[in-house]
């Protein structure tokens, strides 16, 4: 009999994982076709749009104009962790999220912990993004048709509403597409990236007219801790950068391409964010950011005194945030799918509808929960929960790199972290530094959430784990229900 310690730390062997995805599919090798430029573009596309459209109204009141430094800090930490992520992804030759990597390197219990974080990084961020979308949609319809949904139907209860209806509708629309088997193609992704970048550049060009240096006078009213708290909130706008790391198998010459693309994407994204932030702060005093909805649109309207620039920004946001929501919900369903195949959560999550070839039940459950969050919880809380989830997931990944180097030094790795062991250690410290300045309530809720998931693991996952039952992971074929 295995001891308790052995059970919670049992790992899926890398070879076993390879068998699961590579066997009898003829697809064990993917063509290496992605170069630096393309991967950088993917990184920019995955990152921009998740947060910059709405985090300023939460972060500026916390950090003041020094929020610019918050972006630098958050960007640096995101970059360090993305590099660590890339090593782990390349050492574990399966396609998957950090849950799969953690399962292979750290063991079952830590993998479950990472999964708890990922549910925040994906599920909760989808809700946050949907709420941001709802703000811009309201702005757009107001400018175009003079129609604005009543406060009760466009705000969470805590903000004086009943339900955030547009956010719920957005989630429902994405769900419908996902159930039908839609998927964002590389072409659509490129178009969305261009729209986002154009909208931000447009904001900068028009917004620069309202420049007033006086707004920078009281640069860091809340000191260093204000800056790191701000970094905690805007870390949200860097999620997605880690997605680059999962493309490892398809990247040409990963040793060179990976770090260049991650750093390239980081520089572009951070540069753009900082310019946007500087223009925004130059245009209005730090105190005006608080509770501002559809921030970027509202700022432009102030400066120009007309609604058309705000309309353009709002339209761009409405289009591009839609695709972000779609992709994030998609990612969430597939992570749960993988967990279900491992026996960590009930089997319904890996039932595939024969006609649409998509996990329909899974998608509906995920969407229902995301829609509830989006409809009922205010955006600042959602954004902070996402940030802490992402930070902890990154933290675990960085530790995983160190553990794997010591435990299996000879494992072939497509990509190795430059500057080991300094990089992963800095990454861990960076994450901890940002986490410590998050609001206490966020940290508490996070701890409660993690313990709920861990209790779930001890009650359900540990017993049902396919690995624990010495089974091939995945649904036994003869039990397929008709």
């Amino acid at each position, binding site marked *: 009999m295995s001891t308790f310690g052995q059970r919670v730390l049992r790992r899926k062997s890398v070879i076993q994982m390879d068998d699961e*995805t590579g066997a009898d599919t003829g697809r064990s090798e993917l063509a290496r076709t992605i170069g630096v430029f393309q991967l950088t573009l993917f990184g920019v596309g995955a990152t921009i749009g998740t947060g910059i459209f709405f985090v300023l109204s939460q972060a500026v009141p916390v950090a003041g104009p020094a929020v610019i430094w918050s972006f630098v800090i958050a960007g640096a930490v995101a970059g360090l962790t993305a590099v660590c992520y890339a090593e782990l992804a390349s050492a574990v030759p399966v396609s998957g999220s950090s849950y799969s990597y953690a399962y292979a390197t750290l063991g079952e219990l830590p993998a479950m912990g990472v999964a708890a974080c990922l549910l925040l990084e994906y599920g909760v961020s989808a809700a946050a993004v949907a709420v941001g979308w709802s703000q811009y949609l309201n702005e757009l319809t107001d400018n175009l048709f003079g129609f604005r949904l009543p406060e009760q139907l466009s705000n969470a209860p805590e903000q004086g509403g009943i339900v955030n209806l547009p956010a719920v509708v957005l989630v429902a629309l994405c769900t419908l597409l996902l159930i039908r088997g839609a998927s964002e193609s590389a072409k659509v*992704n490129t178009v969305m990236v261009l729209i986002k970048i154009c909208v931000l550049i447009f904001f900068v060009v028009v917004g620069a007219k309202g420049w007033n240096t006086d707004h920078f006078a009281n640069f860091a009213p809340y000191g260093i801790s204000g800056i790191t708290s701000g970094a905690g909130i805007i870390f949200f706008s860097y999620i*997605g950068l880690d997605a680059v790391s999962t493309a490892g198998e398809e990247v040409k010459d990963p040793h060179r391409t990976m770090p260049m693309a991650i750093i390239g994407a980081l520089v572009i994204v951070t540069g753009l964010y900082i310019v946007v932030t500087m223009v925004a702060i130059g245009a209005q005093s730090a105190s005006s950011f608080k509770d501002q909805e559809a921030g970027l649109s509202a700022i432009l309207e102030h400066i120009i005194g007309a609604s058309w620039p705000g309309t353009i920004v709002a339209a761009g946001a409405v289009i591009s945030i839609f695709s972000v929501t779609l992709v994030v919900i998609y990612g969430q369903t597939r992570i749960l799918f993988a967990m279900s195949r491992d026996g960590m959560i009930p089997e319904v999550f890996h039932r595939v509808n024969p006609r649409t070839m998509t996990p329909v039940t899974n998608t509906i459950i995920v969407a229902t929960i995301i829609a509830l969050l989006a409809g009922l919880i205010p955006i600042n809380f959602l954004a902070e929960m996402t940030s802490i989830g992402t930070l902890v997931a990154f933290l675990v990944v960085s530790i995983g790199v160190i553990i794997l180097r010591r435990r299996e030094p000879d494992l072939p790795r497509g990509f190795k972290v430059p500057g080991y062991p300094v990089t992963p250690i800095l990454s861990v410290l960076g994450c901890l530094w940002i986490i410590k300045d998050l609001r206490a309530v966020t940290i508490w809720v996070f701890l409660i959430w993690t313990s709920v998931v861990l209790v779930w693991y001890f009650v359900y996952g540990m017993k049902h784990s396919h690995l624990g039952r010495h089974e091939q992971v995945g649904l036994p074929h003869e039990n397929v229900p008709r």
Partner: protein
Amino acid sequence: MTLVVGAAPEHGGKAALHLAAELARSAGEDVVVASVVPAPWYPSLARVDAEYQSYLVEAADRALAGARAALPSDVPVTTVVQHASSAAEGLLEVADVHDASLVVVGSSSAGVFGHVALGSVSDRLVHSSARPVALAPRGFRARADGRVRRVTAAYGGSEAADDLVIAAARVAGRVGATLRLASFAVRPPSPITAGIGSRGEEPVVQEWIAAIHGHAEDVLADVRRLPEPPLLAASVVGWGPSWQQAIEDVTWDEGDVLVVGSSSSGAIARVFIGSNATKIVRHSPVPVVVVPRDVAAGDVDEVDVTG
């Protein structure tokens, strides 16, 4: 039973004739070559269009003679000139007269060589025929003694698909061909921006494949109980980011025929090709037979009686 194949005066294509000969030889049936000419508009006492009509009939006769020459001698052939308001209608009328088991047509000359392309006649047929329709890829040629060696049923795992498999199995059994089930998993790779790797969709497809194999086993158990069961080849799944790649993922040989069922959303008694079936047809490198739903279901009822 009889196969009806169309021969048009200005359409020199021999693909449909070759396919008809191969199918007829395999099933021991005879071929009726029909040439459809426009019907006179109305009975005219003055017979103003008499010359035109006789010109049309002559042209049709020439086409039929050419077709007869192109068909191999071991297949019994009769020819008929049919007056009808459209080519598709004429073919269906001839098929009704002879109670044909199959209507055979070629591809549009605008299509790609080696693939099936629906033209105006075949498009109409696959959307309204009450009888199965066989479509030859453009430029299809059979050997002089070619037979159908393997019948591949496109299988999607639904009840209607089960009926189709039984229907295909009966045909395969009758012509002495092997039966193979083929399913096609068309899923684009997951977007890199989703952060789960570009193979994030693989486990989902594998789950689907496992379920499909499970269903297929059940159907094949029914097939084995048929009075004249065909030899069974292993079921295959073609997988790719597009229909073309998924269909090419499966191996195809000479003597292959692909059978697809009509959509479950059309009228019950007719072929109404669905959106997926259309894509399969368009990318098929081998001849395709489109079977209306009730023909497939009818075959199954017979099985229940006999078996």
